């Protein structure tokens, strides 16, 4: 593999990583924007999505696409339950919301261990077995499973963007994020919007887990590193800013993938965290965040 081919391969890897990071982080940012809650259980929802897909596809034997849809619906239901039972009483209480979501993270992680046992390899034969040789170059390979991740993520992001910018419901959601009280005065039901946001966010996490399930090791703790990445993206992009999260997701994924390829994985994460600290010190509102008054 020549240098140029390695660079091409890394660029393609970065693109796929950014698409996944983007849907994961956008869900997290959406919840923060609407409800002012930092959802630590977001990584756990991703994990539940992966487990559900593995169970339905590899154990029960349902078709792959049906498993993905069912897994997404399941995480959506869990998300709605969390909104009603936990996040609504904690509305506006940033720290309280964070703590209950940490509790929920523990509960979900233990639940999958209880249901499926610990330590067993959750092996899954990928649905797509072929690989794509980019531009006919033999040594640059992207498996179809990963192209599928990219396609699904791009589809979700475009749909989400159309929803937010073209539909009345999407406008209502943006209004809620900007100023909940003013939105409520215009007759927008904040509770309904919160539930919708939570459903969308949980579905994004769950579907992310579902499409990633053939590519990663499925463990109860698989959400932690993804969550750390999403926090970095969230801070660098600016809290509550979806555009910022998208830009930061792409930038960070390129940075992380290149450093991982050329130096090493741990170093990449350490540098990423240092980058986030730097952003916090120099411009705590992130690249796209609004100014905050004291």
């Amino acid at each position, binding site marked *: 593999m020549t240098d140029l081919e390695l660079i091409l391969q890394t660029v393609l890897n970065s693109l796929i990583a950014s698409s996944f990071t983007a849907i994961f982080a956008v869900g997290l940012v959406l919840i923060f924007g609407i409800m002012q809650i930092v959802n630590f259980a977001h990584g756990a929802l991703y994990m539940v999505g992966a487990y559900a897909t593995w169970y339905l596809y590899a154990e029960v034997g349902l078709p792959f696409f049906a498993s993905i849809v069912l897994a997404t619906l399941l995480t959506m239901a869990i998300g709605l339950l969390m909104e009603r039972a936990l996040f609504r009483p904690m509305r506006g209480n940033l720290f309280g919301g964070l*703590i209950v979501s940490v509790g929920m993270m523990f509960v979900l992680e233990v639940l999958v261990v209880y249901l499926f046992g610990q330590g067993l390899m959750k092996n899954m034969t990928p649905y797509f077995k072929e690989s794509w040789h980019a531009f006919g170059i033999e040594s640059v390979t992207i498996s179809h499973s990963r192209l599928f991740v990219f396609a699904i993520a791009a589809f979700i992001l475009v749909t989400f963007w159309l929803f937010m910018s073209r539909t009345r419901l999407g406008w209502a959601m943006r209004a809620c994020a900007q100023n909940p009280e003013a939105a409520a005065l215009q007759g927008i039901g904040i509770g309904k919007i919160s539930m919708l946001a939570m459903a969308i966010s949980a579905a994004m996490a769950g579907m992310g887990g579902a499409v990633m399930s053939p590519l990663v090791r499925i463990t109860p703790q698989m959400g932690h590193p993804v969550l750390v990445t999403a926090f970095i993206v969230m801070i660098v992009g600016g809290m509550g800013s979806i555009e910022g999260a998208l830009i930061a997701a792409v930038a960070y994924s390129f940075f992380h993938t290149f450093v991982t390829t050329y130096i090493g994985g741990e170093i990449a994460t350490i540098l990423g965290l240092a980058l986030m600290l730097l952003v916090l010190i120099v411009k705590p509102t992130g690249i796209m965040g609004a100014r905050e008054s004291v």
Partner: protein
Amino acid sequence: MSRRTCLNAAGIAVVLAVICVLPFVVRPYQLDFLIFLFINVILVVSYRLIAITGEFSLAHAVIMGVGAYASALLASLPISPWISMPLGGVAAAVIAYILSFPLFRMKGFYFLIGSFAAAEAIRLCWVQFNDPFGGFRGLRGIPVLEIDLGDLLYLDLGAPVPYYFFAMIVGLIFLTVMYRIEHSRFGFVFHAVHHKDTLAQSVGVDVRRYRTIAFVTGGFFAGIAGAMLAHYVTAINPGLFGLKQMLFVLVWVLVGGLGHFAGPIIGVTVLSIIDESLRGLDELRPGFYGLVLIATMLFLPDGLVSLPRKVMQWLVWLRKRGEGALARRE
């Protein structure tokens, strides 16, 4: 001496007596549990010292790890553990001081995430650099404490019973010191900084300076707790000081209640005892923690320490309702 202080003193005396008798009646593995409990008590009380200034740090477990690693590395030089342990605390305080410069430019959620990022970066450095930190396997063969006065006295503190008393004495001294700090002029300023941030600033309190003092002092005690852990278990690795450990500290403190000095101590004791009785169900323990955490946040936001008052209020309310119902019937 008022009746209240008398009661308090009597309570503390009873607890002390029980603690002194305990090592001779429990089984050996339970002694280990009690030693870890003492170390965790120091950890949570030092965490409260930081939290009463109004900022929740997610760096505390790693600061504890800094103490453990520093003391273990110094002891391998070799320096006597008796000297390396306080130096471990100093190292933790120094790291906390360095971290305080970037971190105290932030507030609220940003502080939380910033402290997490800084801590995780330090922890990943331990994983990354095999020399001197030993990578993800960590350090082994850390020397235990011993008292060697020649022919006069030899005491191996690596054994559970002597170490139990050592941990108890150190723990009591630290608790007294931290209690005195909280009830000194400094402590009152800490509370002022928490509840009336802007007002404190306007009367000339350097808020950031006091937050730094609390952060560094808390870091020092956490570092010593880490060193005590390292010299007892004789092997440490980065996994001991990860996010999960930190979240446990947070759970202990919050479930116990931040508002009172005894809160975190009650929290860590009650939860550890319940946790210990779930020993057979190892992988289910975090789930129990999660449920307790959610229940506390929803129904008892001031923690276990507020439970008696809550129950009293409830009883009064019940009685009033009963009287009201009677009045209506007449």
